[in-house]
């Protein structure tokens, strides 16, 4: 009997431990932190239950290669000035290739010698004479894609999932080759604002204003022969009405960019209106000082993503600090500061998949899931009690223990519970009883064949053993396949189903068996209530 006692204590211990883990999920955050006994983590709720935004973003890594080619085009253009031994007539980037025209064949040979050592560009056959065609070598293309992906992840993390200033509990992770998974738990940010965080590429530029007019039309009318070379028109837009205010004639190439920013934060002007204050790093401060010194009296346009935010007149030389005024609300100012701080998104991203659940639906799903689980549990318990009486009571106890084990294990691994996950639990409740039914029916059959209760129980359990194993292993196989292939909430179904299968088998084959072993009247047919 000592073997039985040992098994019994182990089983009760396990159920108590996991039961405790299950119950501790109901403790509040403060209680968890205050008590040394309560675990810090626990069951997490999926976004479909909590409400929240789930995005899979596609990153256009082709663009990273194009940008890398663009970098080489710039390098080649300036190479002669930087001491290279060749002259360049024209450099173009087309269809993923870099076309370089040079004045003479000797320049072309010098160009070849200059390009070869870097290993970044491969010559393509088409070129000849005074033209050379290159494309990125596999190695540097690979490198460009990797760097592009890293940058996108970095920027999005800083904007969304920064541990200090980001949105609490949000997640930004890489998914596959060229995708980013963004999860923002509910109620903290609405969908269109979150979209804004993604959308704004955060390309901050400073340009000296060369002309201004009341509207784009009026300003362009001043240049009947077309805009002066290297300039463009951009408008200041009123945030409230969306109307274009003043139009400015600006140089195409920025005089200074936001790449030199060190920090940006929300501040207030003298009339307590929100503004964005920024600070340059050392190099940026030096350049900004030079620029402002040379242009005192001129207007400086602060351009973010092609839109002029403000164009203050430079009164004196400015060093490291500046500010952007743009009739912001405090929210807009805060968002802009985040975007400036995180730097620009080097490659555009596109939402490829979205699963956004409002808080109301999430709460509704929890209620309904809970109700379905309890109802299912109730129906099943009534069914086994009615059909198998005392033995049904054992099965019900085993079922309750099974649920504690299932939820306890999930809490231990800090697994995520989703609505399909709840469906998996309900299914587990139904299937867990299957194992008991298989055992009990077998015991009944053995009793009918004249076996004594003790023998019938032993035979019942042993004959049912492999049947139960087979039946559950096949279901486990499909659950694992689903886990491998499934995405999002559906994965939660695979998780609860897999764990539920393991705990069900344990509950039926170990726990119910122990209860029968403890059964006081296993000696006579009359007292075996099955």
């Amino acid at each position, binding site marked *: 009997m000592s073997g039985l006692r040992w098994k019994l204590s182990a089983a009760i211990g396990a159920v108590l431990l996991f039961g405790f883990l299950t119950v501790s999920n109901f403790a509040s955050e403060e209680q968890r932190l205050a008590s040394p006994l309560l675990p810090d983590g626990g069951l997490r709720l999926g976004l479909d239950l909590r409400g929240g935004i789930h995005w899979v973003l596609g990153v256009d890594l082709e663009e990273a290669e194009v940008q890398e080619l663009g970098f080489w085009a710039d390098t080649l253009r300036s190479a002669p000035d930087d001491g290279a031994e060749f002259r360049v007539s024209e450099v173009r980037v087309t269809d993923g290739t870099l076309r370089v025209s040079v004045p003479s064949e000797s320049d072309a040979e010098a160009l070849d010698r200059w390009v070869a050592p870097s290993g970044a560009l491969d010559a393509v056959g088409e070129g000849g004479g005074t033209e050379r065609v290159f494309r990125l070598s596999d190695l540097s293309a690979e490198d460009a894609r990797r760097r592009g992906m890293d940058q996108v992840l970095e920027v999005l993390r800083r904007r969304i999932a920064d541990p200090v200033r980001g949105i609490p509990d949000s997640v930004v992770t890489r998914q596959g080759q060229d995708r980013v998974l963004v999860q923002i738990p509910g109620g903290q940010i609405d969908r269109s604002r979150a979209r804004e965080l993604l959308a704004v*590429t955060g390309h901050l530029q400073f340009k000296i204003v060369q002309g201004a007019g009341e509207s784009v039309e009026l300003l362009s009318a001043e240049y009947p022969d077309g805009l002066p070379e290297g300039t463009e028109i951009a408008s200041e837009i009123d945030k409230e009405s969306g109307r274009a205010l003043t139009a400015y004639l600006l140089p195409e190439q920025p005089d200074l960019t936001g790449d030199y920013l060190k920090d940006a934060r929300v501040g207030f002007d003298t009339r307590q209106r929100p503004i964005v204050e920024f600070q340059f790093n050392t190099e940026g401060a030096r350049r900004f000082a030079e620029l402002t010194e040379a242009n005192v009296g001129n207007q400086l346009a602060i351009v973010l993503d092609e839109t002029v935010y403000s164009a203050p007149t430079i009164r004196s030389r400015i060093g490291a600090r500046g500010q952007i005024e743009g009739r912001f609300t405090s929210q807009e100012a805060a968002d802009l500061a985040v975007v400036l701080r995180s730097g620009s998104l080097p490659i555009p991203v596109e939402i490829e998949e979205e699963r956004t659940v409002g808080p109301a639906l999430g709460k509704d*799903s929890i209620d309904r899931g809970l109700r*379905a689980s309890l109802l299912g549990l109730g129906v099943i318990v009534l069914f086994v009690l009615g059909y198998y009486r005392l033995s049904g009571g054992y099965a019900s106890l085993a079922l309750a223990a099974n649920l504690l084990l299932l939820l306890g294990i999930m809490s231990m691994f800090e697994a995520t519970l989703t609505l399909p996950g709840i*469906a998996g639990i309900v*299914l587990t409740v*139904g299937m867990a009883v299957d194992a008991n039914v298989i055992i009990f*029916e077998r015991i009944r059959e053995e009793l009918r064949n004249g076996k004594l209760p003790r023998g019938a129980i032993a035979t019942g359990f042993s004959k049912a053993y492999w049947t139960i194993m087979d039946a559950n292993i*096949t279901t486990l196989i*499909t659950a694992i396949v689903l886990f491998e292939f499934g995405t999002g909430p559906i994965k939660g179904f695979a998780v609860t189903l897999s764990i539920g299968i393991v705990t069900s088998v344990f509950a039926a084959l170990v726990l119910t068996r122990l209860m029968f072993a403890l059964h006081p009247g296993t000696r006579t047919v009359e007292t075996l209530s099955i």
Partner: protein
Amino acid sequence: MFEIVPPGTRIDFLGRRHIALVVSLALLAAGMVAAFWKPGLKFGIDFAGGTEVAVRFDPGTDVDEKRLRELASLCGVLDDPVSVVRYGETERPEFLLRFNRVADGAAAAEECPVDAADVARLEEVSAASNPTGEGEIDVVDLLTLAMAGAVGPPEILRVEYVGPRVGDELRRDGLAAMAYAVLFILIYITFRFSTRFAPGAVVALVHDILITAGILVMLGVEFDLRVLAALLAIIGYSLNDTIIIYDRIRENMELRTKFDLEDVLNRSVNQTLSRTLLTSVSTLSALLCLLVVGGEVIRPFALAMSIGIVVGTYSSTFIAAPTLLFLEQSLGDGHGGSGAKAGSGKKARKKAA
């Protein structure tokens, strides 16, 4: 002691195998007709791609499908007609909008009854997301504004969007998952049951999947990830009953050296009938609870799974054993199969017993 199947029940299941064959073939054919002709196999947005928006209004809001359909068409949804379904039973009207094609850029907002300032704000966001400055205005945002203005404050319950690339991938992965699940189970069954039993189990398995899917198509259920999860679970679960019966057949074969196969099969099915029915009833009752109170989101799963369990119970009783008989008769000698042939699983079972 209450028993749903009285001891000594001897229903001649095998003798009625032809009826079962006709029923199954009829169901299969009906499923095929439904899938390839009418009403046709329908994919949800998970597999077909598209946008789905579930929205709820305050009680007493004057709104119907037609109104929302008009608004959607005005605000850049190109599908004609836009799919709008009213659902839910609460006094707060709930609708599900579904569309696949949306207008590009500012064209979406041209006729939409919303403030120009709001449109400008959306435009700014979307244009900035694209370096060429030609972003698409988010139709869901636009529509939300339009509904707020023209109908009443909408509560957006859920927004799901699946892009074409993701839809293709999910479809491919879904098929691959089904194929892998069947393959692994096939391997497991062959391993556990010997080649003699495996084909019957696989026939029953494929039968269950096809017929369940066929019934779902006939009911007009859309195939999405939830239904896929249910079909996968059915692949795993439908074997449960078959395994119970096959285990018993093997056991009965081992009892005697000489027997009439049809008699053994019939006896085995009858002996396990209460088990087969009870396990299905228990799982089914849990699923029916889910179907009834689990809510809109989980309903397709619960429905698919419930149907699958009923079909699985039918097939393990009427299809699995006859398939075994058919295979034995056409491939082997049919009679006098001896327990010794029962295969590799036997050793394990003996040990367990």
